[in-house]
C-alpha cells in the first residue's frame, strides 16, 4: 500500500533510452495482429459487417452462453479442488507449498489435444471408463466430461494464486491464537471473508483460460464459440465472420481480466510479511491427506491416461514408428521452437525490464497492454496474423514458417513478460546506478551483474515458451504453411482418420518429448526461487 518509489534518477544512458524506445515499439508490434483482426471483423475487406449475423441473432449469444456455461462449471470444480488442496497444504509446512503448486500446474504444458485424446481413448465407447460412464447415462462427449478435463487442466492456476495468498495470511496466525479467537470466527471472518475477493479473482482467471481453450470442447463435440470460429474460418472460408464472433468475446475476456485485477489488487497490497517461525507445524494427518489428494489428482490427470495410451499403443516400436512417420512435423515443430522461444524470451526481457523500471520510477509505459494478447482467443491472433500476412511486408514471407513463428511470439510474449516482471519487480532500483557510480561500464554491468542474476529466469522462460509453442494448436492450424504442419496438427488430423493405436502411440511420443522439458522447467524455476531468496524453510 505504501510502495516506496525511487527518486527520479538522472537521465537514462543511451543504451537504456534505446531499450525504452524498443520496448514501446515492441508493444505496438505485438498488438498488430489483434488490431488487424478487429479491423477484419468490421468487414472492411468484404464491404459488409458480420456483427449483425452473429450478434443481431441468437447465434452468437448461444455460443457465448454455452462457452460461459462450460467455463463456469469447470471453474467451480477447479476452485473447489484448489481450495481443498491449498487449505490442506498450507497448514502443513511452507516446504510443501512450492512443490504442490508446481505439481498442480503440471497438466498445463501438456497439449490440450493430447489431453483430450487420452480422455477420448480412456472414456470413449471402447475405453475402460466408457462403460462406467454409459452406466450413468453419460459419455465422454458431454459437458460434465469436458468440465472435468478443463478443471483438471487449469486448476493449477487457482492453486498458485490461492497458495500465495494463504501463505501471506498466515502472518496473522499467532495473533489469532494468542487472542483465543474461536475457530468459527476465525474460519468465517479471518479466513473466508478476506479470501472471497482473491478466490473470485482466481476464478475469473481460470474461467478465462477455460473459455479460450478451443481444443478440448472442440474434440469433445461441445459447441462453444471456439469450434464455431474454426468452422466459420476453415469450412465457410469467412475470416471476417470468424473475427466478428471472436472480437466481442475477446472483449468479455478482457473485462474479466480487468475485474480480476481490481478484485485481486487489494489482496496483493498486504501490510504483513510471513515469517518462517510463524508457520505452524502441520499435523501428520493433514500432510497425509494433502499428499494423497495431490497423488490422486496427478494419477487421474496424468497417470491413468498414460497407462491407457501405453496399452493402446502396444509397444515402444509402435511409438518409434509413429515418431518416424511424423518426422517432418517433428522437425518443423523443433524448428519453430528453436526460433520462436528465444525471440520470445529476449523481447519479453526487454519489455519486463522497461515495465519494472517504470514501476520503480512511476513513469508511464504501454507495456502492460501487451497482456491483451494473453486474454484473447488464440484463433483471433491467428486470424489477425493471416490478415497481416496478406499485406506488405509480411506478404513476402507468407508461404514460409515465419507468420506462424511471429504469431507464436505475439501470443507467448505476454506470458514471458509477466513471468519476468513477477520475478524482477523487486530488483533494487539503485543497483545499476550503483554500478555506474563505481565506474562499471554498461556492458560489464550487463555481463557480470545483471546476467548472472537473471540467467536462470531467462532460461526458464525460454523453456516454458518452447513447451507452449511445441504444443500450440489453435494458431498452428490457421497459420501453418502447406507442407509445414506441426506435431500438434498431425495429431489433430490423425484423431479423425487413423486408428486408436496410431493416435495413442503419437500422443505418448509427444508426452515423452514434452516430459523432459517440463522437468527442466521445474528445475530452472526452483533455481530462480533460490536466487530470489525464497527458500522453502
Amino acid at each position, binding site marked *: 500500500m505504501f510502495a516506496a518509489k525511487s527518486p527520479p534518477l538522472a537521465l537514462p544512458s543511451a543504451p537504456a533510452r534505446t531499450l525504452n524506445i524498443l520496448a514501446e515499439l515492441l508493444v505496438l508490434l505485438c498488438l498488430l495482429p489483434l488490431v488487424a483482426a478487429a479491423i477484419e471483423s468490421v468487414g472492411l475487406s468484404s464491404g459488409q459487417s458480420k456483427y449483425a449475423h452473429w450478434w443481431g441473432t441468437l447465434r452468437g449469444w448461444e455460443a457465448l452462453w454455452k462457452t460461459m456455461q462450460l467455463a463456469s462449471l469447470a471453474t467451480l470444480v477447479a476452485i473447489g479442488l484448489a481450495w481443498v488442496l491449498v487449505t490442506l497444504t498450507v497448514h502443513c509446512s511452507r516446504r510443501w507449498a512450492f512443490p504442490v503448486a508446481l505439481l498442480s500446474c503440471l497438466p498445463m504444458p501438456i497439449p490440450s489435444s493430447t489431453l483430450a485424446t487420452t480422455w477420448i481413448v480412456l472414456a470413449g465407447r471402447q475405453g475402460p471408463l466408457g462403460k462406467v460412464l454409459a452406466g450413468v447415462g453419460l459419455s465422454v462427449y458431454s459437458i460434465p466430461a469436458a468440465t472435468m478435463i478443463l478443471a483438471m487442466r487449469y486448476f493449477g492456476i487457482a492453486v498458485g494464486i490461492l497458495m500465495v495468498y494463504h501463505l501471506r495470511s498466515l502472518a496473522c496466525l499467532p*495473533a489469532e491464537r494468542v487472542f483465543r479467537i474461536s475457530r468459527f470466527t476465525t474460519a468465517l471472518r479471518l479466513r473466508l471473508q478476506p479470501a472471497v475477493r482473491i478466490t473470485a479473482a482466481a476464478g475469473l482467471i481460470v474461467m478465462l483460460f477455460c473459455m479460450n481453450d478451443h481444443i478440448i470442447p472442440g474434440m469433445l463435440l461441445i459447441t462453444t464459440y471456439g469450434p464455431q470460429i474454426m468452422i466459420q474460418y476453415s469450412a465457410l472460408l469467412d475470416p471476417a465472420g470468424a473475427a466478428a464472433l471472436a472480437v466481442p468475446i475477446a472483449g468479455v475476456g478482457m473485462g474479466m481480466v480487468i475485474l480480476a485485477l481490481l478484485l485481486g489488487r487489494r489482496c496483493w497490497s498486504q*501490510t504483513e510479511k510471513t515469517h518462517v517461525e510463524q508457520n505452524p507445524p502441520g499435523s501428520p494427518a493433514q500432510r497425509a491427506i494433502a499428499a494423497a489428494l495431490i497423488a490422486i489428482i496427478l494419477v487421474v490427470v496424468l497417470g491413468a491416461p498414460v497407462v491407457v495410451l501405453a496399452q493402446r499403443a502396444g509397444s515402444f516400436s509402435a511409438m518409434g514408428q509413429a515418431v518416424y512417420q511424423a518426422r517432418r512435423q517433428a522437425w518443423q515443430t523443433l524448428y519453430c521452437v528453436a526460433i520462436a522461444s528465444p525471440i520470445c524470451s529476449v523481447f519479453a526481457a526487454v519489455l519486463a525490464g522497461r515495465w519494472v523500471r517504470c514501476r520503480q520510477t512511476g513513469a508511464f509505459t504501454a507495456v502492460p497492454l501487451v497482456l491483451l494478447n494473453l486474454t484473447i482467443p488464440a484463433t483471433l491472433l491467428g486470424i489477425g496474423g493471416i490478415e497481416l500476412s496478406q499485406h506488405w511486408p509480411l506478404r513476402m514471407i507468407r508461404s514460409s514458417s515465419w507468420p506462424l513463428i511471429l504469431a507464436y511470439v505475439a501470443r507467448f510474449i505476454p506470458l514471458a513478460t509477466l513471468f519476468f516482471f513477477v520475478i524482477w519487480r523487486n530488483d533494487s532500483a539503485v543497483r545499476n546506478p550503483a554500478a555506474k557510480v563505481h565506474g562499471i561500464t554498461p556492458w560489464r554491468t550487463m555481463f557480470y551483474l545483471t546476467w548472472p542474476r537473471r540467467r536462470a529466469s531467462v532460461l526458464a522462460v525460454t523453456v516454458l515458451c518452447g513447451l507452449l509453442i511445441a504444443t500450440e494448436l489453435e494458431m498452428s492450424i490457421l497459420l501453418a504453411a502447406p507442407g509445414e504442419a506441426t506435431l500438434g496438427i498431425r495429431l489433430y488430423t490423425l484423431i479423425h482418420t487413423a486408428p486408436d493405436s496410431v493416435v495413442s502411440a503419437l500422443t505418448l511420443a509427444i508426452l515423452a518429448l514434452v516430459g523432459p522439458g517440463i522437468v527442466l522447467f521445474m528445475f530452472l524455476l526452483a533455481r530462480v526461487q533460490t536466487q530470489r531468496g525464497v527458500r522453502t524453510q
Partner: protein
Amino acid sequence: MKCLVGQDLNFSYDHRPILQEVSLRITPGKATVLVGPNGSGKTTLLWLLAGLLKPMDGRTGLSETNKSGQAELRAVDYRRVRIGMVFQQPTLWDHLTAEKHLEIVLSGKGLNRSERRRRIDKTLSQMRLEGFRKSQPGQLSGGERQRLAIARALVIDPQWLLLDEPLAHLDGSIRAELFDLLRETLAQARAGVLMATHNAFEAMRLADEVVILLDGHVVQAGPAEQVYRQPAGLVAAQVLGPAVEVCGDARGGVLTCKGQQMLENLDMSLAGATRMILRPEDVKFRVDPAGTSVVRRCEFVAGTYILHTEVAGIEVDAMHSDRISVGATGFLGLVRSQPN
C-alpha cells in the same frame, strides 16, 4: 498474588539451542523488560509464555501460594487467562477496520454489546485512534498500525501483556511519541508486563525489572539501576551501554597496570589485584602533561564530550565537559569511589 512463570525453559529450533534453562517471573502490575541483542531468544521466550510454542524442557505456569504458604506452579489454562500480545510485526488483519480488530478479539469473551462498545471506544481514545475507526491497516501509517496492535492487546483488559519489540520498526519522533504513550498506558494497566527490546535506553526507562538475555541464557536480572550499575560481567554491562573492563593492582587509591597508573581516586580500602567494569560516566579525565593516558579521539555527544583515551594499551572512554585536543595527556580517575 499470581505470577506468570517460566521455569527452566529449553527450546531448540532446527537442532540449534535458542533458550537454555531460562527462568523468569512476571509480577502483576510490574513491567519486566527483556534486553538482549538480536537472536538472543527474546521472541522465543515471549512465544513460550504466550503458549504459542511448547517448551522442549521446563514449564510455564502460574505461581500461586497454597494454604500452607508454599508457592506452587500450576499449568496455565490459556483459554481462561487473558493474554494481550504485541508482535514484532503488527500482524494485523488487512481486511478489518481498526474498530473491527478490537471487536473480533472481544467476541466470545462473554461481554455484552454495550460493554464491548465501551471498551472499544475507551481503547481507541486511549491510543488516539478515534479518527481511524473505519480505517483498514493499509490506510494507516507505521506508527498508527503499531498503535492499533497495542490497542488490540489492551482492549481485552489483559492480565498479562507481552510486548515483542513494539517500537522496532519506528524511528524518530513517532517512536518517542509512541514510547510515551506506551509508558502512560502501562502505568495505568494492572497487567503484568513483559517487554522484549534491544534498546537499553527504552528498557531502563520503562522497566521495574530488567532481565538480560544473552545466547539463550539469563545472565542477570534485577531493578534497572542495579543491573546497570552492578553488571554481572562485561558482556552483560555492554548490553545496557558502552563499558570496558580494566584489570590491575590497586594500592593507595590508585590502579596500576603494566607499571603505568591507570586510574586514580579509587576507594582507599581496595588493595591487590582488582578487576573493574567502567562506563564513560564513571571516569573523569584530568589534563596533565605528565599523565599516562593519551586522548585518541574526542566526540561531542548530546551536550557532553566523550574522550576515547588509551592507557597501558587499553582503550577507556571518559566523559568530559570540555573539548580536549587529540594527543593531550592526563590521568583517568573514578567519578565515584565505588567500582562496579
